[in-house]
Each structure stands twice: as structure tokens, then as C-alpha cells.
């Protein structure tokens, strides 16, 4: 089952397409990282998936065919908006009360137990909680709805390193406990390395890279060798850094990792290197299956 599936999905604000011809599938049971530069359409895509806004073009389905914003879509998806907002003047207990009454399903006992475990006092106003505690409160409200899909928009941006770690640990524990699928947008690439097992890279309103993280890492490598021979590399080059004498080429390998050309060294790539390489080359794409044909081929340099 795909928790989110879009076909030619687009959203226009005035003259600007925030998301354009977006075709993707987010498989269930994954922790999907949604990355991309500012203005790439990440938040728009999330808002479309949770039913906060209507598409201008194309279609979107959630939870295996439900319409975003439908009763099933609303019940099965929990959304935590950017920077995990809470009502500053309401106590944690009041926020539980309100969320319980605004939703058809709410696990009050789970919410109270989770807050107790985190040491977040029910009576304190949310505005008086630390940033990390506010984020945990927002996460608790979302998880207590027992969603099939948890959508998190930049939850880590304003958190300190310890709070980031604890927040992600909470999300990961929820995956382990309940098998909830997660889509998370973030700029913190290094933080995603350990948590994401599916990656979607949006750029200029379009999908640039999509796939299982393991597959993506296995199908790319970094070749280091003499700049003069950069043109002899046959694998598609995603991004090249050429010095006077030395060249670093991040290349896509075709299936099995090929042999290393003489004079060259091959290194595995990290998720961060991979994402940065594609961000620097908006024309390059790595997409699964038929979607590939719809996009430009990866740039080749030094030809």
C-alpha cells in the first residue's frame, strides 16, 4: 500500500506553481524523508496530502486510495505543522481535552502516559514548556490519534541537538510500537541519515529523486581521480567537482557496482553527499520505474 500517491499533482498560488507535475508514491511502513531547498514545494505537498489545501492540477490519494481530507483520510493521518506549534496559553491538559473533542479517535490514556514518561506536567501552560517539550507535546497529540500515517513538517528546525535526538527517538519508538508510517520534511540532512529509509527529493516543485535509501546509496558512488581523465568515466555523473589536477565525481552506477577504472578510487556515498550532489544539479534525476522517462537525464560533465 502507498500512504501517499500523486499523479501529475500541481498547486498554483497566483502565477506561481508551488508544486508542478508531481508524481510519486510513498510506500507504507517507511520513514520517508522529504527534502529539498526552500520553496521546493515540501510544505505544499504535505498540505495537499493531509487535505489542508486543494490541488490545482492532478490527483492525490492517501492511505491506499482515500481522498485527502475525506473522513478516512482525516482519521488515519496526523499532521504536525512546521515547528510543532502548540497553543501557548493552554495547558497540556487543555490541549489533550481539545484534541480529544476535535477528533473521532483519541487515546487519552496513551497521551497522558507518554507525557508522564517525558516529565511534561499536565497543568503547565504550553508556552512555559521548553522548545523540546512543546515539540514532544505536539507529537504526543498527533500519536494519541493513533494514525496510520504521521506527517511532520520541519519538526526539528528549532530544536537543540538533545531535543532533536529525543524527538526522533520518540518518532522511531512509535514506528517500532505501532508500525506507523512517517513522512518528515527536514533540512537537517545529517539527522536523516540514520532515520530515513525512503527518500524523496523535491526541487522547483518537481520530484528529483525518489527511492529506498539503501538502494539509492548502493547505486551511487564517489570516484576520485585525475581531472584530465574525468571524461573517460562512463557512468552517469550526477555532480562533478573538478580541481586543477584532481576530480571528484558522484556517479550513478548501473545495477552492480562496476569495476574501478585504473587511476581512480571509488568510495561509497553518504545520504548527505547524495542529497547535496542532486541539490547542486537540479537537472539530474534518480527516479524509480517509468517516472524516469518523464524527466531529464542526469547531467554529464567533462564530456
Amino acid at each position, binding site marked *: 500500500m502507498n500512504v501517499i500517491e500523486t499523479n501529475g499533482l500541481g498547486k498554483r498560488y497566483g502565477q506561481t506553481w508551488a508544486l508542478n507535475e508531481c508524481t510519486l508514491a510513498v510506500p507504507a511502513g517507511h*520513514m520517508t524523508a522529504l527534502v529539498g531547498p526552500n520553496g521546493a514545494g515540501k510544505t505544499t505537498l504535505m498540505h495537499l496530502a493531509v487535505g489542508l489545501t486543494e490541488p490545482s492540477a492532478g490527483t492525490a490519494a492517501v492511505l491506499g486510495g482515500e481522498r485527502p481530507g475525506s473522513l478516512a483520510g482525516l482519521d488515519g493521518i496526523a499532521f504536525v505543522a512546521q515547528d510543532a506549534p502548540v497553543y501557548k496559553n493552554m495547558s497540556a491538559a487543555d490541549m489533550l481535552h481539545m484534541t480529544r473533542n476535535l477528533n473521532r479517535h483519541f487515546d487519552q490514556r496513551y497521551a497522558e502516559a507518554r507525557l508522564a514518561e517525558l516529565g511534561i506536567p499536565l497543568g503547565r501552560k504550553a508556552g512555559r514548556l521548553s522548545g523540546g517539550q512543546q515539540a514532544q507535546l505536539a507529537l504526543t497529540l498527533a500519536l494519541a490519534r493513533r494514525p496510520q500515517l504521521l506527517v511532520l513538517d520541519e519538526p526539528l528546525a528549532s530544536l537543540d541537538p538533545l531535543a532533536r535526538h529525543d524527538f526522533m527517538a520518540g518518532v*522511531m*519508538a512509535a*514506528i517500532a510500537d505501532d*508500525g506507523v508510517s512517517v513522512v518528515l520534511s527536514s533540512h537537517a540532512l545529517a539527522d536523516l541519515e*540514520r*532515520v530515513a*529509509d525512503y527518500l524523496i527529493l523535491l526541487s522547483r516543485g518537481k520530484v528529483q529523486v525518489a527511492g529506498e535509501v539503501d538502494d539509492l546509496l548502493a547505486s551511487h558512488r564517489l570516484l576520485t581521480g585525475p581531472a584530465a581523465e574525468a571524461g573517460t568515466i562512463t557512468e552517469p555523473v550526477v555532480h562533478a567537482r573538478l580541481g586543477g589536477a584532481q576530480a571528484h565525481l558522484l556517479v550513478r552506477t548501473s545495477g552492480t557496482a562496476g569495476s574501478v577504472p585504473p587511476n581512480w578510487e571509488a568510495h*561509497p556515498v553518504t545520504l548527505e553527499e547524495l542529497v547535496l550532489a542532486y541539490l547542486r544539479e537540479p537537472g539530474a534525476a534518480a527516479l524509480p520505474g517509468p517516472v524516469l522517462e518523464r524527466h531529464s537525464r542526469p547531467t554529464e560533465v567533462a564530456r
Partner: protein
Amino acid sequence: MIIDKPISGVPGAARAGPAGARVPARAGPSGGSPIEFRLDAACGVPTYLQLVQQVEHALRLGYLEPGDQLPKVRDVVSTLAINPNTVLKAYKELETKGLAAGRPGQGTFVQATLSQIALPELTALRRSLHGWLATAHAAGLDGDGIVALFTSAMRDFFERRGAARGRRGGSTDRTEGVA
């Protein structure tokens, strides 16, 4: 999907750890496994492989023995903030190697051992290696030089002995859990 659930009753008899290390009980403070995972973000080894290697390392050094429980997926995940699928992948790899086995509703348990010799012998070997290291150091080799020499000598040694039969992981002395 995840089979780990908190369990009660863990094999936890106190005994001395390897090489004289003070390990009061097999079960850790959280009452689960004798080992805890850590992650090295800078080493470039995929996370799941780090977990596999740490279990193998613990098996070689005797920190883990057949019947011991590996850390529960949920515990690993909420300590290290990593994806549960990563832990499951590591445990599946260990199962494939015949080193661990999952028990439905309980967790994953060590199935075989990698420590090839008993502790006293290991200690004696370590002592004689210390002697050699002192000689090499006195002769002017630094750490990197020693590693390079040792690695190359070891490669020669095993090449000369022909293809080593039954690589590591081929251990056959499977022991049923003692829980």
C-alpha cells in the same frame, strides 16, 4: 511487524565478564541484553552493519553467549534514535549468519558463539602479543607501521594456508537458549 515486547524473566546470573572486566550480570541495567549499541557517525559504515559488527565483536570477546538476548528493537530505537527497520535488518543479517534467532513475542537471542577459544588462552595470546608489540615499538615502528606489518603478515599467513575453510559464521555449535 515488530515482534519485540517487554519480557519478564531474563537469564541474569552474575558472572565475571571477559578478560577480568567487571560485568555484574548478563542483563543490562534495563533488564534486557548484556550489551548496548553505540554508533559511530564518522566511520562511514552503514548503521545496520555497525550493529552486526558490534554483536560479532561482543561474541568474539565473550560479552555475548548463546542464550543471551540482543537489545530489544524498541530499546535500541529509542536510545539511538534510528529507524526500527535498520535494527531489524541487522538482526535478520545475524539470523542469516546463524548467530541469532528470533523468538516470537520475546525478542532476538544469541544462537551461536564466535569465540573460538577459551578466555585463559585468549589472555595468554594477548600477553605474548604485548611482548611482540614492545619489540616492534622499540625497533621504531609506530602504530600505523605495526598495523600495516601485522595486516600484511596475517594475509601472507592465511594465503599460505590456502583458502580458509568455513569462514567465520560457519560455527556449528548451536546451543538452545537457556532461558
